[in-house]
């Protein structure tokens, strides 16, 4: 069966998802309320998930929700609530270098965009994407097996390190 194609629909979905990604992202970095910032991560992450779907990367999409939306955001929320940030009081959230930061961000973004548009990307239109969960699994267990095992060590040290740092001694 040929691939489902509907340029207009795809573009529409893309635009919607981009907006779902970017608008909350702006809220994340500008909101004066830290909890709102953190919660705005959710639509951003979900929007990114949507983009992954458009790119046919289902597994990554699932993981994106599971880890980013379901775990990392929760962790962030926990910390906010366990520290003063939870008070919801609008305190100054930005430092003195807003103009500087904005300039740097805009400048770098502009630069990257310039490069992105100037570069003739070597698009491979012939190969049909064949990835799904099992291709990822196979890759992890063969070509990328070292990465796979090192990942477990990274997880281990993060776990131990974070416990050591976060634990309160009696």
């Amino acid at each position, binding site marked *: 069966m040929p691939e*489902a*194609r*509907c340029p*207009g*629909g795809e573009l529409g979905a893309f635009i919607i998802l981009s907006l779902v990604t970017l608008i909350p992202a702006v809220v994340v970095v500008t909101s004066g*309320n830290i*909890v*709102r910032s953190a*919660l705005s991560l*959710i639509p951003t992450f979900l929007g990114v998930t949507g983009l992954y779907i458009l790119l046919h990367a*289902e*597994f990554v*999409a*699932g*993981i994106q*929700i*599971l880890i980013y*939306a*379901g*775990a990392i*955001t*929760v962790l962030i*929320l*926990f910390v906010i*609530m*366990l520290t003063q940030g*939870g008070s*919801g009081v609008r305190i100054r959230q930005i430092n003195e270098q807003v103009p500087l930061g904005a300039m740097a961000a805009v400048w770098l973004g502009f630069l990257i965009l310039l490069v992105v548009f100037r570069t003739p990307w070597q698009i491979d239109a012939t190969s049909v994407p064949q990835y*799904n*969960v099992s291709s990822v699994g196979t890759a992890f267990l063969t070509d990328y097996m070292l990465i796979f095992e090192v990942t477990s060590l990274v997880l281990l040290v993060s776990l131990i390190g974070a416990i050591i740092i976060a634990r309160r001694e009696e």
Partner: protein
Amino acid sequence: MTARDWLEEIGKAILLTVVVFTYLAVVTAMLGVYLERKISGWIQARLGPKHVGPQGLLQTIADTVKLLQKEHITPRQADVLIFNAAPVLVAVAGLLDWVVIPFGRLGDRVLIVRDLNIGVLYFAAMASLTVVGILAGGWSSNNKYALLGGLRSASQMLSYEIPLAMGILWVAMVAGTLSTVGIVQAQSINRWFLFQAFPFGFLAALIFLAAATAEVNRVPFDLPEAESELVAGYFAEYTGMRFALFQLGEYAEAFAMAAMATIMFLGGWLEPSLPAWLWLGLAFVAVVVVVLLIASPHMDAVDVPPPAPGSTTESVLESAPAGGPAQSPDYRIPHYDCTLMVAIARSSKPDARGPMPGG
């Protein structure tokens, strides 16, 4: 596919959404609540609801109508946007669970919204989204008990998400796929996964069930809501429809968990001796009973007469001793107003609090 096909798909999707949502709202939530009350009443040698409609069947509908009319009290200093968004998020997450659940079979076609490639992973991901809603709700209430309840619920749900995933993984491993339909079909070739590789199948099923129960905050995993201590946990400040949405989400998820257990361990719709829909239904009901009722939140309930109509808040204000609760390290409420609180909590849970026009 042409644009027309796309529109068609979208239309179908919208239709399905409405159907599933309604199904959830009517069947799972309302029926579930009714059954829960009725059966736990029976277990505890009470009558349960009986006035509205035959055998009190319409009680839940009446409750819904009542809830619709209830004033939405937004606590002072609460973050209104988040306060409203949280229940919606929980409800939608509960709804989204149902996308990958096959309801049964119609001829050659499996009755399922969409058979996603990463079905069970998707299911787990949606389940994890609920946590955010609960935390947001607990926080936005600007109530320390709600916040604490939220944190506790979230902690618990997080803790049991891993065992839940382990149960799912075992099935995925045996079936070699993540698709829910694929899992059911794999069981047609083999046996129910419950009996696969004895005793691992049992073990996995047990783990899954236990985790699922914890995931939806049911007894004996209702510690976070800790009605006696935390005044209903994270939704202490929620009233009216918002409260109902939380309940809807929770019930939707609970039923989805039960359905998932059926699909993963009991062969879904694939029992050869009975019609598919019947088997699926029976198995499903059995699991629901296990999840919701045997371990019912009302097991330990003491029967307390409902308080007089009127604002519970005010009545308590009058009777409460002066001064706040002592600041004990674990945020327990001192014992002196415990009984009273239990009463309030009880009464406020199905009925919600607030003025009740016309009783």
